[in-house]
């Protein structure tokens, strides 16, 4: 990376131009960098009536770097507004100069150029890490049972996230296959039947992305039985841990102290007073729904 080889360098061209002279036309095939040494240049759009001046250049300013280094089109005509002196760095000149600089400096110039290009490209793309999570998050806030025209829904989602429509439609199909949304009709409409399932799905996908086990799918048989029993237990029943273990025992569910600690950790109980615990109905409903729709969530229909 230390190359500093000397080669024949093609010098830039210096010219004097009169006011009104077109220095660079937008349809010029030849790419070049124009550096203004003296006078004034203006970038104008002659296709508009009246023609529009986009910017003027003062001595020391330059244009055409993106055109030369990044092959971006130059959109304007460059005209001298006063008698001016310019330096023109053409492709051959630039190439010969770049060949004479150390490779690391060439890499720096390329990196600066690439960063700009990548940034522009990134602005056109969705920033969401997972398109299915993104769409599920969007759909879970739609009104339950309300039919939304598919095309408008996709358009709205794309506007919010910059996702691309064909990909969104594929993701909608994936949600539909899992029965989280329904797509029906000749002019298709999308209906969310149970937004809670989309919440579960988002959590499931997030755990999967982080390579962490998702708690609702890690329950033992007895913990599942306990969950089902809790779902039909009065939510105002508040008792201490030994009483809860006895309660499960009485219902033929053999749980250990370790199971109790795990259930507490999963948030199935709310500490109501002192050492008394009551079931958290919202949490229990969440886990129960996950068990019921286990196959849909894992997408193994």
């Amino acid at each position, binding site marked *: 990376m230390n190359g500093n080889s000397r080669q024949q360098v093609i010098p*830039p061209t210096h010219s004097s131009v009169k006011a009104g002279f077109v220095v660079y036309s937008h349809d010029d095939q030849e790419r070049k960098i124009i550096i203004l040494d003296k006078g004034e240049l203006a970038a104008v759009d002659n296709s508009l009536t009246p023609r529009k001046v986009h910017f003027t250049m003062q001595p020391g300013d330059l244009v055409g770097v993106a055109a030369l280094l990044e092959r971006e089109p130059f959109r304007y005509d460059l005209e001298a507004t006063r008698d001016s002196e310019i330096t023109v760095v053409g492709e051959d000149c630039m190439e010969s100069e770049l060949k004479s600089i150390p490779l690391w400096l060439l890499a*720096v110039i390329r990196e600066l*150029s690439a960063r700009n290009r990548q*940034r522009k490209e990134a602005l056109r793309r969705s920033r*969401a890490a997972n398109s299915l999570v*993104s769409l599920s998050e969007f759909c879970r806030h739609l009104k339950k049972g309300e039919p939304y025209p598919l095309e408008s829904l996709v358009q709205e989602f794309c*506007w*919010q996230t910059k996702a691309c429509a064909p990909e969104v439609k594929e993701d909608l199909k994936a949600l539909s296959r899992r029965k989280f949304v329904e797509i029906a009709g000749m002019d298709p409409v999308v209906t969310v039947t149970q937004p809670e399932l989309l919440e579960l799905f988002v959590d499931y996908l997030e755990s999967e992305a982080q390579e962490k086990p998702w708690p609702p799918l890690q329950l033992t048989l007895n913990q599942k039985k306990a969950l089902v029993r809790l779902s039909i237990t009065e939510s105002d029943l508040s008792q201490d841990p030994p009483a809860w273990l006895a309660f499960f025992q009485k219902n033929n569910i053999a749980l250990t102290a370790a199971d109790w600690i795990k259930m507490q950790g999963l948030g199935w109980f709310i500490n109501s007073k002192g050492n008394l615990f009551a079931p958290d109905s919202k949490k229990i409903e969440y886990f129960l729904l996950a068990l019921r729709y286990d196959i849909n969530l894992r997408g193994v229909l």
Partner: protein
Amino acid sequence: MKLSAGDFLCLEGDFASSLYIVISGTLSGTGSAHTAATPRLFEPGDIIDVFSLLEHAPREYTLKAEEDCEIQVVEHEQLKAILDEKPSWLRSIIEFLIRRNHIGEENARKSNQVQALPSLLYLLSGILKEQGGNTAPMATVSARAARMNGTRPEECHKLFKVLQELGVLKIQENSLQVQSPELVHLLYETLRYRALEQKISPNILSMTDQMVLTVFIRLSQRSKDPLRNGLSAISTADLKKESKKSMHGMTLTTRTIGALVEKGILTPSTSLDFHQPLDQAEFFFGDFDRIMDLLELNRIFPLLDKKLVE
């Protein structure tokens, strides 16, 4: 420079004036600007910290050798020496590229900020509906915005501040206290309409409409009459009298109030014939909260775009 596996090369934020080129081996980079779940890997040929070399900017990454590595270090003095012996236009081009990078970075920041607002409002409105109140946990809104739109926490916070400055919400310790959940929804819908229909939303009212509604609200606040079907009722005579006072002597006519009737914001006690005088209707009805939200929206909306890019 040689590094053994596990060695650290530099820490994020260290001030430096050199760049690194990976000659052999792999380095992993972590830093606050790098939001991906896994560290960025640098392999032979990659250059790191261009801006430290060019502008003495702080290191972008904390770099750790994942295996034995060989690194070339290029110091600012080397760059200076090269540029001193080269034609001045080469320096100009590099300076131009640096400037363009900074402008591009700033534009990207603003663009991301503007782009993140609709989804943030959409999510906030949804969470408020879920929770059934005026308060939403800040962490929940930020987490969902990150999932849905890749919005970073600091971008969310900036947007919360913008919305606070506009009076839409108040940032509390861990939550967002919203002035009116309906206003959040209206704001989202108005942005959506502008973007997708490419037209001004019907929620955006003319100055005259806003003045008439302000008069209606003022009279409703003063009124001691009970609500009728949940709506405020104001007599046409009172509306005309108060309008004359508040609207610089302007006479309220059927035509003036027509747009509000057509939009369903005000409802006359009898159906309006637009060619007849306004007195044909004895009363006008309106939803006080809805009108307040609309007036608030019309106050906020013209300020929004400017606030976003400040």
